[in-house]
């Protein structure tokens, strides 16, 4: 299996093998959420991660011929996304448009993500449980961040806090959610007799 750098498929739509297309869409459908979560874990800004995700999907389609059916599509897709993220990083650094994570660190983070996919796959329910346990005021701030899509300044203004205080509270919420998810993981492992 080759890495999914772009290897152009035949360009005429009439050459499309509908089985391959269906297979591609099915696999992409199965792994799309995890792929999006991977890209956003590397690039937490939505606008950047949306662009990378879209570029990745096109690259995956263009190089689908080189994917070996039966191997791990998710891992293949995440490798393709990592290349796009590294390209993006180079472009931003060259044009001095953004400061961000180094290539070496991206590679380490991607490897660590890959090693923990079984944990991240089953996080949804635990996160929902932990969200429900947050105090009302903290739930409200999370709602502002993720439902209202507010930035720090907007949250600070809406909640009547300073910018620094808003950073502090959001940091506390993030850490407490993380601790709670970890506790839930342990609790479930014990419940399954694994712990």
């Amino acid at each position, binding site marked *: 299996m080759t890495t999914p750098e772009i290897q152009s498929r035949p360009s005429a739509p009439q050459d*499309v093998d509908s089985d391959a*297309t269906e297979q591609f869409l099915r696999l992409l459908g199965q792994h799309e959420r995890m792929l999006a*979560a991977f890209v956003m874990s590397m690039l937490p800004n939505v606008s950047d991660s949306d662009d990378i995700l879209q570029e990745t999907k096109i690259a995956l389609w263009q190089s689908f011929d080189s994917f070996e059916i039966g191997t791990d599509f998710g891992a293949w897709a995440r490798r393709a996304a990592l290349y796009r993220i590294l390209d993006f990083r180079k472009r931003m650094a060259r044009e001095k448009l953004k400061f961000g*994570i180094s290539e070496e660190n991206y590679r380490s983070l991607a490897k660590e993500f890959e090693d923990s996919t079984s944990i991240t796959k089953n996080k949804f329910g635990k996160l929902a449980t932990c969200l429900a346990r947050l105090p009302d005021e903290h739930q409200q701030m*999370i709602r502002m961040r*993720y439902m209202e899509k507010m*930035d720090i300044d907007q949250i600070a203004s809406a909640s009547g806090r300073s910018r620094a205080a808003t950073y502090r509270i959001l940091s506390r919420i993030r850490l407490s959610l993380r601790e709670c998810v970890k506790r839930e993981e342990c609790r479930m492992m014990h419940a399954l007799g694994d712990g």
Partner: protein
Amino acid sequence: MNSRDQTALCRIIERLVDDDLTEQDANWLNDLLQNDPEARTLFLDLTHDNAMLYLNWPQLEQHQNHNTLQSDPPSVSPVAHHAATGLRPYFWNGVSVLAVCTCILISAWLWSAPRQTTHAPFVATLTHSSNARWAESTLPTTVHTPLGPGRMRLKHGTCTLRYTSGVEVLLSGDVDFELIDSSTAKLHSGVAKAKVPKSLDRFTINTPNASSAEQDGEFSVTYNPGDRTSRIRVIEGKVSVRHQQTGKQRIAQKGEALEATHSDLLQADNSIPEGELRIPPRSNYLSDDTMRITTAMGRGGDATIIMSNDPTFLDPALITVKNCESDYRRKGYLRFDLKTIKGSNFDNAKLILTLQETHWAHLRAPHDVLYSVFGVTDESLDGWRPEDLRWENAPANVDASDQVDESKARRLGSMLVIDGRATGQVALQSKELNQFLQEDTNGLVTLIVVRDSPVSSDDYSTPNGFASRRHNSQLPPTLEVQLVANEESI
């Protein structure tokens, strides 16, 4: 890793989310990630939680509410199974045929329109429409066209959308529907019905005051913006509904209906047939808090630049825009005088352009045309005079037809003209446009309109035209904003 570093890392992640990282932050972060495996784990945990919260927000909240309700036996019946099991094989056969057709069309789209695909992930396909007349939509309305996130505004008729997740949504009558992602939609007005396959975790339709999620079944949602009331009716299965303002939640079973008013979520009279909310047509009047500014007002202005600088191919009544390889490439320049809104706080900024035939004797392509709008960020360039504007001296111009100098201008969004039509209006409404106007300090803003795609061919070479400030009957390029009281001023 000490708690101080943990807090600092959290703060950096907030900055990454807001795309606001400084060089100093980046250096600190890179040192930490390189040298501390614990920091890498924490970073990944936190950014993955951020991704989960962002990608699954409505479902996470629904899940949380759903669990709470399910643990409350007196108020909830067991999950109702899909009663119409006999319909399933028929439904899925139909779906598989549709899926194959859709697959072929998607692949054609992936190959033929690479530039468009960079802007929007694929969410659903418009699979059917009947007697449909469309209002101003931000998405294509041609049947079998793959759709990304965006608004679909149907004036009358019916249409069916098939989501990549397998959900089928039927829209009917005067409806304003927004595709958000493969498991979420927002109904701004009218009625939508969703059929959700068993394989999906859940599908959510939000309205401004209610969030309705279903797993395996069928339900309809109606929203009346006049009295801000949502009505949710369950056809099969059960639906979990959350009231946006109060947080109150209820579960409705097959045959039941719920009504969300501006202040409460109530059991509704289910004897009234589906589509029971009368939704009065939207007023033709602008509301009192809406302000419009055109390029014909104050120090405003507009002009077309053409690479050849040959005035023979310009029309003072039109802004013409063309993407081609030759010297006939054109871009539109618009300047607005913000004097009338200076000192006011505003929101929902919108750029409105009026499409016009250009009367050049060439064919106009019957394809969707995508335009990008850029705002000139270097305010020292706002003083251009329309009569003196040339390709060489136009602010932030570069030679490429579809690009500008992004060190002096930034992208504010895109507009789609369906089927290359040359009548009606096209609008750009974006957070970026609103922010750009709010950041203005000299009372003038310059916008540049370029055509992204398709590139002109030998067969179809006519540029697209918009009425300029000198058109004798049509609305010139217009900025519309909604004033917001009691907030900070610009």
